[in-house]
C-alpha cells in the first residue's frame, strides 16, 4: 500500500546521498557529533605534528592551526569579513539558480510523469543531456553573453535542473492510480488532483531531486567561478589566492566550501526531510 514504487533512478540518487538518520534526542546528537569530529581531530593533530617536525612542507600543506586561524580571521573584522562576502556572493548565484531549476524541473518533471506521450517524445533527448556536464556549456554563454552573473546562473541552472527533473518525474510516475481515483471519488477535479495528490505524493522524490540538484549546483559553482574569472566568490577565492601562493587561504576556502555544502545538505535538507517525511512515514 505504498504510494510510491521505488524506481532505479530514485534509488540510485538515494545511494549517492547519505541516508537520513531518525530524529534523535539532544544527547544522542551530541554523541553523534563527537563521534564525527573525533577522527577528524585526531587526523588534524597528526597533520599538525608532521608539519611542525618538518616532514610536511608548510607551504604546500600548512598546519591545520594556521588554516583555522585564517578561517577565523577571514570571518572577522581583521579580514574584512571576506569569508562572508565571498560566501554571500556565491550563495547569491547558487540560490536563485536552484529556485529556477526547482521550478523548471518540477513543472517539466510533473508533465513528463503524467503524460506517457510526452515521456516518449522527450526521454531520449533528456537522457542524452543528463550526462552532459553543465560546465561544458560555459564557453557557449561566455562567448555570447560574456562572463557575468547571468552566465553563471544559467550554467548553474543547467547543472541543477536535470537531477530535479528526473527525480520529480519518477516520483510522479510512482503514484498509483488508486490515489488519484480516491480523490476523484471525493469530488476532486484536475487541479485538486495535481495539488492534493500528485505534488504531495511526489514530495520525497522532489526533495531528493532538490538535494541532488543543490549538490550539483554547488560543485559546478567552483568551476563556473573559475571559468568566468570571477573575482569574488568562495570558489574564486581559491584561485585568486593561488596566484599569490597563499595556500593557507586556499585550504581555508576549501574548508568553507565543504562546510557550507555540509550545512546545507545535512542541516537544512535533513531537517526539512524529517519534518515532512519523518512524520508521514517516508511514504514508500
Amino acid at each position, binding site marked *: 500500500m505504498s504510494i510510491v514504487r521505488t524506481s*532505479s533512478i530514485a534509488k*540510485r540518487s538515494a*545511494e*549517492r546521498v*547519505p*541516508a537520513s538518520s531518525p530524529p534523535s534526542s539532544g544527547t544522542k546528537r551530541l554523541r553523534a557529533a563527537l*563521534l*564525527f*569530529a*573525533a*577522527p*577528524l581531530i585526531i*587526523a588534524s593533530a597528526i597533520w599538525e605534528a608532521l608539519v611542525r617536525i618538518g616532514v610536511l612542507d608548510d607551504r*604546500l600543506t600548512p598546519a591545520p592551526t594556521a588554516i583555522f586561524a585564517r578561517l577565523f580571521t577571514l570571518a572577522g573584522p581583521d579580514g574584512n569579513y571576506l569569508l562572508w562576502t565571498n560566501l554571500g556572493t556565491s550563495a547569491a548565484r547558487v540560490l536563485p539558480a536552484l529556485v529556477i531549476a526547482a521550478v523548471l524541473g518540477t513543472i517539466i518533471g510533473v508533465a513528463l510523469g503524467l503524460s506517457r*506521450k510526452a515521456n*516518449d*517524445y*522527450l*526521454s*531520449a*533527448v533528456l*537522457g*542524452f*543531456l543528463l*550526462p*552532459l*556536464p*553543465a*560546465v*561544458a556549456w*560555459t*564557453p*557557449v554563454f*561566455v*562567448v*555570447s553573453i560574456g562572463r557575468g552573473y547571468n552566465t553563471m546562473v544559467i550554467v548553474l541552472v543547467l547543472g541543477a535542473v536535470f537531477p530535479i527533473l528526473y527525480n520529480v518525474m519518477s516520483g510522479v510516475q510512482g503514484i498509483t492510480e488508486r490515489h488519484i481515483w480516491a480523490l476523484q471519488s471525493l469530488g476532486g477535479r484536475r487541479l485538486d488532483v495535481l495539488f492534493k495528490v500528485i505534488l504531495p505524493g511526489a514530495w520525497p522524490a522532489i526533495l531528493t531531486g532538490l538535494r541532488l540538484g543543490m549538490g550539483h549546483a*554547488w*560543485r*559546478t*559553482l*567552483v*568551476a563556473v567561478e*573559475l*571559468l568566468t574569472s570571477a573575482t569574488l566568490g568562495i*570558489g574564486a577565492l*581559491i*584561485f585568486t589566492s*593561488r596566484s599569490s*601562493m597563499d*595556500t593557507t587561504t*586556499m*585550504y581555508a*576556502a*576549501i574548508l568553507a*566550501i*565543504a*562546510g557550507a*555544502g*555540509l550545512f546545507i*545538505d545535512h542541516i537544512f535538507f535533513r531537517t526539512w526531510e524529517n519534518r515532512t517525511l519523518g512524520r508521514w512515514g517516508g511514504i514508500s
Partner: protein
Amino acid sequence: MFATAAKRLRSGRRVLRGSAAVLALVIIWELTARLGIVDSFLIPPPSTVVAHLFTLAGPSALPAYALWTHIGWSVLRLIAGVALGCVVGVPLGLAMGSNRLISLTFRPLLTLLLAVPSLALAPILILMIGLNNWVPIVIIAIETAVIMAYNAESGSSSIPKNMRWAMASLGAGKLGIFLRVVLPASLPSLVTALKLSVGYGWRALIAVESLAATAYGLGFMIFDAQNYMDTETIFAGIISIAIVGFTLERAVFGSIEKRINAWYAIAAREK
C-alpha cells in the same frame, strides 16, 4: 512470440517518437541559425557544427585527427582515475562495512571529501605535482574512492547476517565468507556506484581540463576554443562530450548495471 513482438512495438514507438523529437529540435536549431534569428556566429547551425566535427576527426585537422586525440586523452584519464579510485575505495568500503571501528574512523573523512567539489582541490594539487596528467587522474580518483567506499560500505553492511552464518556453517573461513558472500552480495551496489563514479568523474574531468593543466582532452578543446571565440569547435566539443559521456555512463556501465541487476533478480527469485 506474440508477447515480445508487442513489447518491441511499444519500444519501437518510443524510439520513433524520441527520434522525431530530436529531429524536430535539430531542424528548429538549423532554421533559427540560418534565418538569422540567432546570430549564426554565436550559435552556428548544426550542419556546420557536424561538418566541423568530421573535419576535426579527419586528417585535415590541425593536428591530424585532433578529435580522436582529445577523446582519447579524456577517456584515458577518466578510466585511470576511476580504476585508481576503485583500488582505494572498494577495499576501504568493504572494510568499513564489516568493521564498525573502521567505519567510524573513516566516515567523517569521506563525508568531508564528498562535500568538497573536486575542482577545488585542483589548484593545490597543481602546486604539489605541477601541471600534468596526474592532476585530473588524482582528482577523479579521490571522488571515485569516496563514492565507491560509501556504496561498498552500505552494500556490504546490508548483507543479512544469516547469509554469512550459513556460509560459516558450511565450513568457510573468513576469507571464504568474504569471497563467496560479501563480494557477490555487494556487487550490485558496487556496479551502481561505478556507474555513478563514471558520471561524476566525467563532469569533474571536463572542468579540470579547462584549467589547462594538460594539453588535449575534450575539456581543454572547448575552453581553448573559447579563447578564440571558435564557436564551431565549442559546439562540436559539447556534442562530443555528450556522446562520449552518454556512451560511458549509460551505454557501457548502464548496461553492465542492468545485466547484474537482472542476474541477481533471477538468482533471488530462484531461491
